């Protein structure tokens, strides 16, 4: 019976507990999480508290200021601004998350394949360069023009456009992720533990999924958080140009666009959607920043 163990191992901590402990020390990231959670909750639970139809035109209440029935006032057609911000937020956030997810999957796949398989590296990275070199906005316009009607017939106007916009944003924003992941994979695959895994006959698929991907998680997570912000901004830009969703379908970008002319009459129409976009993007960026510090083993204190 061993009487003495000189180095008592500390209680076992999983990676995620470690990450959380580090993350907790990043004040900006914590505030970011709070603000972001607040926005998500408000946008999804808000309509249960303030149950006004965001599309309803109340012609008796045009350009109204703050009141009990319209806490943020109304627009020039009598639509309730608060209800519109809620409805717009649901769309903008859904677009942001879905497009981020798509670009993440694409970027990670391309990056891992290019980094791990030498033969694929050249073609895949040139393919990435090709996408990076494409002028984004004209490309979006052409895609929307070509596929709008097909998707509209298949899924109806709103879902069809939603899928299209998510697809379009996803397909045009995966390149950064791919490059970052490739770089990370190139470095990791030369490490000893990969050689060890290979020496005991681990299949390539397992090496990638068990050993490489978890270690490349840090840049992937960071680019994911940045991707959300990016997607929300791109959707805003498309709405601003009058593309994307139908004109009576509120998204934050669209609300901002429509309200811009009325900034001196009803500032709330610009202020709140603008604030919502800025806060979401800012909070998500802070979360990303915190996650990067937390996931990086070199920065994480043990």
């Amino acid at each position, binding site marked *: 019976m061993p009487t003495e163990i000189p180095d008592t191992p500390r209680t076992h901590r999983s990676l995620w507990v470690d990450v959380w402990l580090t993350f907790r020390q990043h004040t900006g990231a914590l505030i970011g999480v709070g603000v972001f959670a607040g926005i998500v909750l408000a946008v999804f639970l808000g309509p249960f508290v303030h149950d006004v139809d965001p*599309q*309803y*035109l109340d*012609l008796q209440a*045009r*350009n109204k200021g703050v009141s009990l029935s319209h806490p943020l006032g109304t627009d*020039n*057609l009598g639509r309730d601004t608060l209800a519109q911000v809620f409805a717009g937020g649901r769309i903008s956030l859904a677009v942001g998350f879905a497009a981020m997810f798509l670009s993440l999957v694409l970027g990670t796949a391309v990056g891992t394949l290019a980094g791990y398989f030498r033969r694929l590296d050249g073609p895949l990275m040139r393919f990435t360069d090709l996408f990076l070199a494409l002028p984004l906005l004209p490309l979006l316009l052409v895609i929307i*023009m070509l596929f709008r*009607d*097909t998707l*509209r*017939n298949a899924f109806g*106007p709103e879902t069809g456009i939603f899928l299209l916009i998510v697809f379009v944003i996803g397909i045009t924003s995966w390149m950064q992720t791919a490059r970052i992941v490739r770089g990370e994979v190139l470095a990791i695959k030369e490490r000893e533990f990969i050689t060890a895994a290979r020496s005991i006959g681990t299949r390539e698929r397992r090496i990638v999924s068990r050993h490489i991907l978890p270690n490349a998680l840090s840049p992937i997570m960071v680019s994911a958080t940045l991707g959300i912000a990016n997607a929300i901004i791109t959707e805003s830009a498309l709405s601003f*140009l*009058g593309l994307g969703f*139908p*004109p*009576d379908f509120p998204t934050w970008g669209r609300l901002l666009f*429509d309200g*811009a*002319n*009325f900034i*001196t*009459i009803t500032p709330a129409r610009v202020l709140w959607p603008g604030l919502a976009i800025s806060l979401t993007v800012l909070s998500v960026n802070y979360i990303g920043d915190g996650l990067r510090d937390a996931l990086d083993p070199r920065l994480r204190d043990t």
Partner: protein
Amino acid sequence: MNLRHATPVLAISALMAACADDPEPVFEAPEEENRHLNILYWQAVSIVNPYLSGGTKDIEAASMVIEPLAHYDENGGMTPVLAAEIPTLENGGVAEDLRSITWKLKTDVLWSDGTPFTAHDVAFSGAYCLDEQAGCASLASFADVTAVEAIDDHTVRITFQVAKPWPYGPFVGSLSPIIQREQFQDCLGTRAQECTEQNFGPIGTGPFKVDDFRANDVINYSANELYREPGKPWFRTATFKGGGDAASAARAVLETGEYDYAWNLQVEPEVLEQMVAAGKGQVLMGFGSQVERLMVNQTNDDSNLGDRRSLYLDGTNAHPFLSDPAVRRALSLAIDRQVLVDTGYGAAGRTTCNIVPAPVPYASVANEACKIPDPAEANRILDQAGWVRGQDGVRAKDGVRLSILYQTSTNSVRQGTQALIKQMWEAIGIETELRNIDAAVFFGADPASPDTFQKFYADVQMYTNNFQGTDPEVYMAGWVCARNPGPHNQWLGTNIPRGCSDEFDALVEELSITPPGEDRSRIGKRLNDIIVQEQFMIPLIWRAAVSARSNSLKGVRMNPWDSELWNIADWHR
């Protein structure tokens, strides 16, 4: 002149040349010295040849350079431009049998390249537009024309197939100006669209000439030194900038004073009011014949049809539900036009039930009932026609749902109108999907784009149209059945709703042989009534032309009957 005097002159002209090249407007110069005119049209110009574009912005940009024989003044009267006088029956210019008109031209007019302007140029302009392969957008102005001949160097005769009591279609107004034969002679027929250099920089007789044209962006003009009236134009250079939107254009003149003139300010009344309060400029309004209307597609626009989409095809491609008169009637009855005026137009709009709201002799009074909305009646009509509300509240019959795709150009007033009409239509069980298209694309007339108003790949679309001058014949002739847009006319046909009525076509022919007077007014009104009562078009708002000028700009006379820039030679500070 000795060199000591010449130097400052040279220096000044060099300075002016520098100003002309500078795309940024010059603001700091004292007003007396600033002979540079900044015009802002928020729809950018795509071509400087009105024969190849139906867009008002292109027509007006071209009207600074190329001129017609006569134009309409701000009261709707005709004044000679390149003609020496207006031909009439009294002065013998119009033949007794009404089958020809003879124009005497001014003799001392030079093109801006120094060559003399002659009747051969007029004859050529006629041949250019009449060429069937050219897809001329002003063809309606040339209705029934058989020949345009130069009798001598300064006399031109236009002959018509039929007796033409109103022979002032061709070469009157900015829709059909005179282009130079020398420059355009290789551009006839199918080659018309290919002559980029000519279409982008026509040589003209007007007060300005094109120095530099960047399509869909900006035109730089300089004064035409050879302009026939000495001392005009007052401005030495002009910039015609395009792009942006109506609100930013209004702001650029009224609030920031960056531009001298801005056109077509379709902005919410409360927004415009606030800009005017800044005191930098004034709003100009003129009620002409502009009517904001809904076009109701009579052909099937289903995207599964591929090439056959929104084509008339001799009536074999009827719309699944808008071909039912009951549905069209209900669409019009459900709309509360006064609400549209109050929210989007204010003093710049009035409710109307006519496609031709002015001038008085042609303004029908038979349709006034539409000014009062009647959704109950609309519901009754739809019920009676067998369109029954389904589970989702949308009416359907035989598996066809009343679901409308409603498109218009991107403009916040129009989007407001769309939202209001959607709510009104959904109240009577008609599902409505809205779409907005950038104005540059929607009115761009690009035959390759699916989103132009001519292609009309939607069920209902909304925009404003008007006619030049005071006679609606040309306007009405644009909606005869045969003018439906399609590949056979490069999509430049003018019968946008693709509606066909034998009575209408016959009356248009009758109108073309009826002299001005009571009969002509009666036929004109009847034509309006057919279109409105068939609801091929649903008139909404009689709009004033709304533009803005800076306080320093003088001499502007708002003209709703012709190009707003018709008297630009007289503009000054």
